[in-house]
């Protein structure tokens, strides 16, 4: 079978033990949380006396010990049942499915933005290491890397939404605007500009740095002198050869940052009042909805694993040495 496909399958298989550990960890978290489903039920629908609670526990199999509970938990998961959200009074799975797409969209757009502009600026800086251009971009990226995403979001809101009124303050689209088709798309896009920028900026600085540093190293590698000896123009050497080699670790970093970006979406979505998966996590903690939080953790792990797999595939296409199994 083609090498990339076997790579994909191998990675998938390797991810299973990790998922298993996350599963066990989540279960332990569930156990550690004070109160079980019966307590949650009581909190929701009114008091029961001790005897009724014991009876309910027996009915729901909650008195049978942790191993039984784990098996029940795991088998429920296998059928896609992530439990019951006490805060939303709906199955956890349906709550998550409703909110996940927006966050995925946010993350994909932010990653694309950060990667494209970060790499571009990184090449510009790395084309002449030590030049004024390079120093400026390096210092700027260092400063940007120190900026908290949520604070940047607020600053952007103040500038663009409050003062300049170019963009909306929050939400994913204008409420009850009745827009449809392209107009609706444009509306959603306008709502996404600031949150995507807030999320992407710190990673942009990271990728810029990485690209620039790698290019700076590559300039000293022997094959660059060979390229010069071929009489190739400087710009061609920089873009077609050095940048092309330097982009590899940046791509690897994309996968490694997937988890961080998902975490970052929690605050960014909160700042911009976006009904996404990230903000759901904050809500779950605030409302002490442990089953929901667990469902979120599991889904995060799956999302991150999937993102890493995609990145690995992309890397495989970019680095020929990996393709032929070297």
């Amino acid at each position, binding site marked *: 079978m083609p090498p990339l496909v076997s790579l994909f399958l191998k990675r998938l298989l390797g991810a299973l033990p990790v998922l298993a550990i996350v599963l066990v960890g989540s279960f332990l978290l569930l156990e550690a949380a004070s109160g079980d489903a019966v307590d949650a039920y009581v909190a929701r629908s009114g008091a029961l006396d001790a005897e009724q609670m014991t009876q309910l526990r027996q009915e729901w199999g909650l008195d049978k010990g942790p191993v039984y509970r784990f098996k029940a938990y795991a088998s429920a998961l296998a059928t896609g049942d992530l439990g019951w959200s006490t805060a939303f009074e709906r199955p956890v799975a349906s709550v998550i499915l409703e909110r996940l797409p927006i966050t995925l969209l946010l993350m994909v757009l932010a990653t694309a933005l950060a990667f494209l502009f970060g790499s571009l600026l990184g090449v510009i800086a790395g084309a002449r290491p030590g030049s004024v251009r390079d120093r400026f971009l390096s210092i700027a990226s260092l400063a940007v890397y120190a900026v908290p995403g949520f604070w940047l979001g607020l600053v952007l809101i103040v500038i663009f939404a409050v003062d300049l009124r170019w963009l909306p303050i929050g939400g994913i689209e204008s409420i009850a605007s009745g827009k449809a088709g392209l107009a609706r798309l444009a509306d959603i896009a306008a709502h996404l500009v600031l949150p995507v920028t807030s999320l992407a900026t710190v990673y942009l600085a990271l990728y810029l740095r990485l690209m620039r540093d790698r290019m700076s190293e590559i300039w000293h*590698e*022997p*094959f660059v*002198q*060979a*390229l*010069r*000896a*071929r*009489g*190739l*123009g400087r710009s*061609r050497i920089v873009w*077609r*050869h050095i940048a*092309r*080699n330097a982009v*590899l670790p940046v791509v690897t970093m994309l996968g490694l940052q997937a988890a961080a970006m998902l975490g970052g979406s929690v605050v960014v979505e909160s700042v911009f009042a976006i009904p996404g998966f990230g903000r759901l996590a904050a809500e779950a903690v605030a409302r002490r909805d442990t089953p929901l939080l667990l469902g979120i953790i599991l889904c995060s792990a799956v999302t991150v694993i999937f993102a890493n797999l995609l990145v690995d595939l992309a890397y495989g296409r*970019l*680095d*020929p*040495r990996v393709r*032929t199994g*070297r």
Partner: protein
Amino acid sequence: MSALYLRVTDLGVRYGETVALQEASLEINQGERLALIGESGSGKSTMAMAVAGLLPRGASVIGTLDFPVLGHSLRLGRDVGVLFQDPDGSLDPVMSVGDQIAEVAMMHQGIGWIAARVHAAELLGHVQIARPLTRLNSYPHEFSGGQKQRIALAIALAGNPSLLIADEPSSALDTVVQRHVVNLLDELVRERGMTLMFITHDIALASERADKIGVLYQGRLVEFGPAAEVLGSPRHAYTRALINTHISLDTPHSKRLPEIDKAGLV
């Protein structure tokens, strides 16, 4: 009598305080093969790189380089092709070999991409890479050291240069492969009427393949002339010592290895 291709007059190269080469003068005619011999640090690579115009930025150069046949200074890739010692360090690892050859051809011959790819396949064939059309899309890591060196040669030839500079082209290769690459080099250069400057520490190689020999010692060109003269009646003590230390398959076991007494040399 062929035309004078290169005249080097009092060439000197310095890196800050360190003198890498001084007062070197020689002449090569078109189609001739010059071997520059010396130990490491003797300045042989420096001389070759100075001729090519590939010295690092910190170098200060004095003296003149004339190219009467060309009428202008050397253009990298177009007038001169360079073959380096380490085949692994000569190729871009993420670009297919076909593209790397074609790139040079397009740049210097002004041809389109398809024509360049065809030309690349031809060149791969000339350097004896099997199944050249298929291997256009292969990457450097899929080849052996000897093959990579041959591909590097193809790249060096892709711009149709009149001069080829080979810096210890076979030193990093196995003995058997060495022969192969050197033979190939010789053949191709002769076919195309190119002038060749090759650097080596191997005097036997020089004696076989060179029309003229230059011997470098501690940054000076201590001997220069036609190969037969230099080898037959060397004027400088170092050259004599070099010839004496050469061991070939027919040197008797009992003959002691003479050492070069550097104290006795200028």
